[in-house]
């Protein structure tokens, strides 16, 4: 079993969550209060959902081909695939959090104001605890999506073992070299991890689903 690629995928997914979720919360908060440009902003942020990953990877290569950050080149490096992963996960991280913000009754926000809370206090004490399901859902989706990401990672990072060769690329490599048993094991493991993450997102964090379950009992 190619544990290096599994660990690399997990490392990439966790870094993506760590960086993307705070950014997602900020973007979603701004989007909820955005004015007339809201539709265009939402459309722009949803683009990674509809664009082929190779198109994103191509633009990344063209845009950052010779760029380095603190001496580290962005292409064919972990930093590069992390930045690419952040970009492709924008809609998966922002949308669930935005929906969670939108589900807060506007009167609750007004009540926070008349209770004398500053915007930061209202966010910290009122809104953030009310959107935690959205944050967990976004985290699970981002995690599962990063584990399965193939096109962009291959275009930007290639397949350098221990650096950019994630589990999904390792599966591709195994298939190319007719190691179907190895590919099958890795696939099964990725399938299981992704299923658990999505099930957590849909089940545990979704109150409506839980209520339905209780209702049936």
């Amino acid at each position, binding site marked *: 079993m190619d544990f290096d690629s599994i660990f690399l995928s997990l490392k990439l997914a966790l870094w993506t969550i760590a960086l993307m979720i705070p950014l997602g919360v900020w973007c979603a908060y701004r989007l909820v209060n955005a004015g007339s440009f809201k539709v265009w902003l939402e459309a722009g942020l949803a683009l990674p959902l509809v664009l082929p990953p190779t198109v994103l990877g191509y633009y990344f290569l063209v845009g950052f081909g010779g760029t380095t950050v603190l001496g580290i080149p962005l292409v064919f490096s972990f930093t590069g695939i992390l930045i690419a992963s952040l970009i492709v996960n924008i809609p998966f991280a922002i949308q669930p959090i935005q929906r969670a913000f939108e589900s807060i*009754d506007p009167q609750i926000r*007004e*009540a*926070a104001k*008349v*209770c*004398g809370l*500053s915007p930061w*206090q209202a966010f910290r004490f*009122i809104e953030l605890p009310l959107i935690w399901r959205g944050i967990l859902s976004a985290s699970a989706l981002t995690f599962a999506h990063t584990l399965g990401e193939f096109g962009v990672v291959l275009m930007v990072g290639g397949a350098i073992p221990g650096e950019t060769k994630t589990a999904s690329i390792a599966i591709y490599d195994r298939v190319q070299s007719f190691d179907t048993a190895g590919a099958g094991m890795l696939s099964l493991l990725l399938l299981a991890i992704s299923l658990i993450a999505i099930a957590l997102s849909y089940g545990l964090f979704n109150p409506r689903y839980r209520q339905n379950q209780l209702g049936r009992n």
Partner: protein
Amino acid sequence: MLKVQIKQAYPMPLQIQLECLPGELHALVGPSGSGKTSTLRVIAGLMQADEGHIQCADMNWFSAAHAQVEINIPTAKRSCGFLFQQYALFPHLSALENIAISLQNAYPNTKERRVIAQQWLEKLGISALAQRMPHELSGGQQQRVALARALAREPQVLLLDEPFSAIDIPTRHALYKTLASIRKELNIPILLVTHDLKEASLLADRITVIDQGISLQTASPRVLFQKPRNSRVAQLVGINNIYTGIFSAGSLSWDGCNRVLQVLDKGKIPAGQKVAWVIPQSGISVHEQAKPNSLVATVHQLSSIGQIASIQFQIKDSDVFVNWEASSAEVKRLSIQLGSEAHIEFDTKQIHIMPLRPINDPRRLQESSQSS
């Protein structure tokens, strides 16, 4: 004291002027969509008026002239307690925490906040519910928590937005008592929005009638019912005998009826002026036999609800109707039946004469904007 003078055109036209004294309970009454809640929201800073000023206890909260805002204190810094119609309790916080959060800035110490919040719960008789979440509380209990939250900050003004509309009658009466006792203790201006006139006249010292965003009259409940400023106010306060005529030196003609009434001339209305006039229920008496100044009328409509009967008389040889309410026993005593005759007498001292269309009547404003 709370002084409000505001004007706005969007999202709904508002032209409100009112004052509320410390310890006074001032009701804003009007039909749905008349701008009562918007007025409270502007006072709290949740909405911004185009022009005017809002002053509370010598502090200017808002001041704007010609769409230029000079002062606009943010909601969080206006010392006002606001009780929302749907209570707006924070769903993730317990009853105690809902109150304690409003003390966040006044008391940095968490323990202190919790002690004060608990004291408020005790004051409102719900200390046993401290750890309950909002969804575990009944409507009346939620409202008490919301009221405690609004009061815990020791606000300089209390704004109540239809607080009694969503609760059952026994709970409502219990809350009337709570409000009365709190009111004595606090000595701050209290504004109450309601569409229920009975509730307003029961609780309020003064009532401001609002229609289509315009404050039409501010008066004590007694004055409002006896001397409405104009026919629209009379309509809104539920006076259903409103007529028009021409007033000339103590003689009041009655449109649609060939009869002139002799009323007291206070010298306020010029001779020959077209006027609206009203007569309260207490100024109408009905007899079986004719009296010196009585009018002959026939019973046009008769409907009974429980022990109360509502009768509409049509004055003979006219197209004028007079509405009258009486007990079923009184109706029986007078042998009132559909189509029967009766004799109606007016106590002319109780006739109140008003200008037909005062300057701030919304209909007049609408007419002038349409014609220009």
